[in-house]
């Protein structure tokens, strides 16, 4: 078990190195940051000086190794646009994205699993069929459209909820939270629904189909034949067996919630790292882009690692080193 974890962590580092290299090499094609940084009245000497100062005259592998060396120490360089350390900017922006992603993920998982189980147990019921039909909307509509529709309905027409921003936040150490103020909570509602809706419907449909499959199994029939209550059969026996494949997809989806926050943050002008990234692209702010991509890949890899470990806690058959045997 421990050997497995170490092996997986080593693999994760390899993945991060490759992702970093690919991302870093792409930056050479997004444009020349010098163009944006110097005004109209620039001389060739200015350009050369800045290029040397930023290290952009060095060959790509050297730049990458320097970036990695800094990144390991938490130093991602200085933003070309804001002139401040990237790590500081990310720390300021991260709480907004993480809170949004956490709320969306929570909504997606809890409602998704709940509705999935419901629609599987009441397979032919009217409500279950209605939910299934409605879920098609969540799967098929693009995120930005859902966001715009929600803004139109709840902000423009009804005027109940704010259409942009994070509301008032409270500082706790370096972390800023919107959970503690009314306007902060109100501001969270629309973006988190927008961000989580696709994941929610996906999880729901997946849980439903897996659950229907599990409910056909012999051990479910046997559990019924032993006179267990429906609740025990459905939740203790069926749901647990349903969760193994669901966890895989859910883990990946949580990663993409953070990654796809870019779109939602743009629609709602949410001051998170996604919006930061979009602005950085426009300005060819390479240090910010590189740091953002590394951050996202660390999260993806981390979530995948957690998912793999969750399998062990759910499915005893995978704990190979704990042999019972006969």
């Amino acid at each position, binding site marked *: 078990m421990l050997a497995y974890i170490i092996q997986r962590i080593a693999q994760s580092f390899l993945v991060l190195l490759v992702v970093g290299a690919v991302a870093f090499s792409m930056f050479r094609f997004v444009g020349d940051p010098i163009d944006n940084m110097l005004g109209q009245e620039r001389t060739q000497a200015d350009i050369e000086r800045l290029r040397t100062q930023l290290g952009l005259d060095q060959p790509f592998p050297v730049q990458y190794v320097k970036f990695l060396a800094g990144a390991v120490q938490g130093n991602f360089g200085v933003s070309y646009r804001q002139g401040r350390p990237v790590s500081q900017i990310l720390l300021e922006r991260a709480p907004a994205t993480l809170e949004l992603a956490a709320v969306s993920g929570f909504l997606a998982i809890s409602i998704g699993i709940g509705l999935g189980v419901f629609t599987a147990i009441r397979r032919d019921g009217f409500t279950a069929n209605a939910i299934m039909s409605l879920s098609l909307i969540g799967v098929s509509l693009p995120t930005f459209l859902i966001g715009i529709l929600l803004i139109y309905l709840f902000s423009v027409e009804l005027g109940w909820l704010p259409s942009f921003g994070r509301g008032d936040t409270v500082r706790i150490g370096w972390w800023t939270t919107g959970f503690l103020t009314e306007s902060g909570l109100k501001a969270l509602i629309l973006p988190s629904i927008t961000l989580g809706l696709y994941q929610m419907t996906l999880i729901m449909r997946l849980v439903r189909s897996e659950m229907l499959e599990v409910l056909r199994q012999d051990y479910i029939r*046997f559990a019924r034949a032993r006179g*267990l209550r429906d609740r025990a059969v459905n939740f203790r026996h069926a749901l647990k067996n349903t969760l193994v494949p669901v966890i895989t997809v859910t883990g990946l989806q949580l990663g993409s919630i953070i990654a796809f926050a870019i779109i939602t943050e743009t629609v709602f002008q949410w001051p998170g790292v996604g919006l930061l990234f979009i602005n950085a692209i426009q300005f060819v702010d390479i240090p910010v882009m590189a740091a953002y991509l590394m951050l996202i890949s660390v999260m993806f890899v981390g979530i995948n690692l957690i998912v793999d470990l969750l399998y062990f806690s759910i499915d005893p058959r995978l704990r190979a080193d704990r042999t019972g045997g006969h």
Partner: protein
Amino acid sequence: MTQPILSIRDLTVEIPTRYGILRPVDGVSYDIAPGEILGVVGESGAGKSMAGNAVIGLLSPPAHISKGEIHVNGTRIDHLKGDAMRKLRGKQIGMVFQDPLTSLNPLLRIGDQLTETILAHLDVTRDQAQQRAIAALEEVGIPGARERVNSYPHEFSGGMRQRVVIALALCAEPSLIIADEPTTALDVSVQAQIIALLKQLCRTRGTAVMLITHDMGVIAEAADRVAVMYAGKLVELGPVRDVLTKPSHPYTDGLMGSTPLASRGKARLHQIPGAMPRLDNLPTGCAFHPRCPYSTDKCAADPAPTLQDGGGAAACFFPLPHKAKVA
């Protein structure tokens, strides 16, 4: 005579389909006494398992009981629904499935599966349930039950798992066990052990057993009486010795003739010509007449007589005369 544990009268199961109503079980009647093992035999699709599922109330819709009565310990149960039926399952009627590899939940310890069943039916504490779980495992011959109670199903062999399944079926002390092909998925040597175990538990506890199988060897080994089913109908019912050695119904006769026996040497096995008819395409009259070597015009025209428990031995107009039955 003591009251039978299970009493089925004229049981009919129907499945409505778009091509008409199918009757996988059609007018079946039999009793099982305390401590008795009734073997139910027949080809695949003869309705053996369907009858068992009807008794325990686990028919999958749209299949349903359309006619007849089922009594367990003198109480009519065929019309019970929902929670009332659930309370009978496990408590009065236990069931053992065919494949022990798939009938245990792979993610739960066997001890947890036992205690949840015990707690669902008996008014005991969690600790007492745990003790009972260990006792149940000991009773079915799991060595080291006290340690093994915390094992997961995959840590047991197939035969041991079937013992666990039997312990699960018996742990709330039901008076009737429906064993649906309990040995089909097991090695031959393990089969004998499982059959011996079932037999011993049934004798010591006075549990009635409905042993559904298509294995004549298992029947000869374990059953007290045999019910032979064909195309949803009960065609012959009698003590195991009589049915095996002196079958009255031509179908049973054909079935016995097609069972390999060491005593028969290298002679070619007998075959019953043709195949069992599909339920949506039953012949007129006796369902067996197209395959029956003794059939007459009457067999093709009139439905065969229905077999009543305690009455005639075979549902046939012309039962085979092996002995001086006409007495």
